[in-house]
């Protein structure tokens, strides 16, 4: 029996633009075990969605997976052609997108959009497919499913639409659900409801890869966290370990942003500077230009991921003297 649902190793996904190769995902390895909820956190533009799209085999041109491997339930995905991937998508791995407002087809009744997934992957009668759709719709907490089945997306609120998206992603009981910023477009109360829903799903045995720029969301859901910066993993740890003992200056920055929110402090602490141009990364550590603990080595030598504790890895020159933090 395999223990891992998803095993991504040394994944590289690049965009080939006029201004050169943009390394949106650069040597990323990650693992999601059965029934585990794994989070990826990082600022906007750091390549989180590209990791998700790479796993789904849905990287758009001019982007392309240029290296590495993606193994889902023991099956290598990067060598499959699109037809073979179509069988995997929606059945073994599914995805909930960031924008519930635009992620549904505006001219198709939502019930049919959910039912479509069953029709693609199974030979069942219309009536059976409809029955299953109604069941999953009520399972994700949609009231009056019979009526909602025939509704068009514009007749539903953002929260309901996102529930429909989750129903769609769950109806085939995939082994992995990828949720890419599922609550970013929603207001706080609805966000809490969706998080509770995802939590319940995770308890039913589905592995979840949750992506967010918000450590608060990650903290509530994930068992294990990857911190991503400029296309790379800079720190990874068990969720408690990461919050108790964050080592990377970037993780500190992200945590600062969350805790200042929590403490209702007037000044929202953010990390100064912006994500560097991925087409033209610094030779050393990508975070060096924004890092308040930058040393001489940081500008010239690129750090590697190093184990610093049980299940805790760090990609930072500060590891050499762990005492510093």
């Amino acid at each position, binding site marked *: 029996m395999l223990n891992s649902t998803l095993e991504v190793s040394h994944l590289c996904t690049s965009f080939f633009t006029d201004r050169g190769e943009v390394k949106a995902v650069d040597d990323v390895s990650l693992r999601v075990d059965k029934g585990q909820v794994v989070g990826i956190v990082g600022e906007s533009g750091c390549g989180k969605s590209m990791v998700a799209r790479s796993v*789904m085999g849905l990287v758009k041109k001019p982007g392309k997976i240029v290296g590495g491997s993606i193994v889902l339930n023991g099956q290598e995905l990067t060598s499959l052609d699109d037809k073979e991937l179509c069988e995997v998508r929606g059945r073994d791995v599914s995805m909930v997108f960031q924008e519930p407002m635009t992620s549904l087809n505006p001219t198709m009744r939502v019930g049919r959009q959910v039912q479509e997934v069953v029709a693609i992957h199974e030979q069942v009668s219309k009536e059976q497919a409809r029955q299953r759709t109604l069941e999953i719709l009520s399972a994700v907490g949609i009231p009056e499913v019979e009526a909602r089945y025939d509704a068009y997306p514009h007749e539903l609120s953002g929260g309901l639409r996102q529930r429909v998206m989750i129903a769609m992603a769950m109806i085939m009981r995939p082994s992995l659900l990828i949720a890419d910023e599922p609550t970013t477009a929603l207001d706080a109360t609805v966000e809490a409801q969706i998080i509770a829903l995802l939590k319940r799903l995770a308890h039913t045995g589905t592995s979840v890869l949750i992506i967010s720029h918000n450590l608060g969301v990650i903290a509530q859901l994930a068992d294990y966290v990857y911190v991503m910066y400029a296309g790379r993993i800079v720190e990874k740890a068990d969720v408690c370990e990461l919050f108790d003992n964050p080592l990377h200056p970037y993780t500190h920055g992200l945590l600062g942003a969350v805790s200042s929110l929590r403490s209702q402090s007037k000044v929202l602490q953010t990390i100064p500077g912006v994500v560097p141009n991925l087409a033209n990364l610094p030779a050393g550590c990508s975070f060096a230009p924004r890092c308040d603990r930058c040393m001489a080595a940081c500008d010239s030598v690129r750090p590697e991921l190093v184990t610093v504790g049980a299940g805790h890895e760090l990609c930072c020159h500060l590891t050499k003297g762990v005492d510093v933090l």
Partner: protein
Amino acid sequence: MRGNATTSLLRRLLYSLITIVGVAALVFVLLRMVPGNPVATLLGERADAETVERISSSLGLDKPLPVQFADYVLGALSGDFGESFTLGKPVVDLIGPAFMNTLRLAIAAALVAWVVGIACGLFAATHKGALVDRLFMGISLLGVSLPVFMVAMLLQYVFARYLHWLPVAGISDWTGYVLPAIALGWGSAGSVARLVRSSVIEELQQDYIDTARAKGRTKRQVLVLHALRNAMLPVITLMAMQFSGLLSGAFITETVFSINGIGRLSVQAITGRDIPLLQGTTLLIAFVIVMGNLVADLLYGISDPRVRKGV
């Protein structure tokens, strides 16, 4: 919701009716403002004043304009559009068969325009940036910008006079419709192709396409089952408007290919100063255009659930 839609339909119908009555009045007045007595033109230069007057009064042309208009409207409501000055027959009897000829031509042209336009537009959209795409778009630009009479005469020369594949002019069987339909539909095919292309490309960039792909649909299925329907929404509106354009804009094609349609009849009416006939054809064309726009609006409302509720 239901009741709302019905009232809005009634409102639109009323607007259409007002437009048509307005056009009728305008045409009526304008035609009578043209200097010169049509009866004099009709009778020739040597007709004496007395005869002109007698005939004018028998045609009701000596009455005041509002009275004439009221007579006309009342007549029109009972299907009487007067009698043609030049052809001596009731206008209805002239317009009826001519309209059928034009209708057949317009249907044939629409078929050409839509089949060719949609096929080329789709193909170009799915091969965006490739050689075929640029070739198709180049040709379609030519289609949009070449004047109809040039296309018509070019087709006539190559396929009828030179290759003898198809009749030069006139309609004796369906082959007679081929060249006129292409000539008339050519421009519409170009604009349909361009709109289909841009609309499909735009739809394929929408988020819901990613969702459909994530469900396990292939690229082709996503195109056919999701993108195409939505991309066709603006195209349907264009097509409905185009159809009335094809019906009303066949003057040149009908003249080049000697088809006895509404366009040709109008030209005849203009040259002969045949006021009742011209009134009849103009009114018919106005009616067709107004109806075309109405149908376009309604189709758009029916096919897009986002507007359906609010129509």
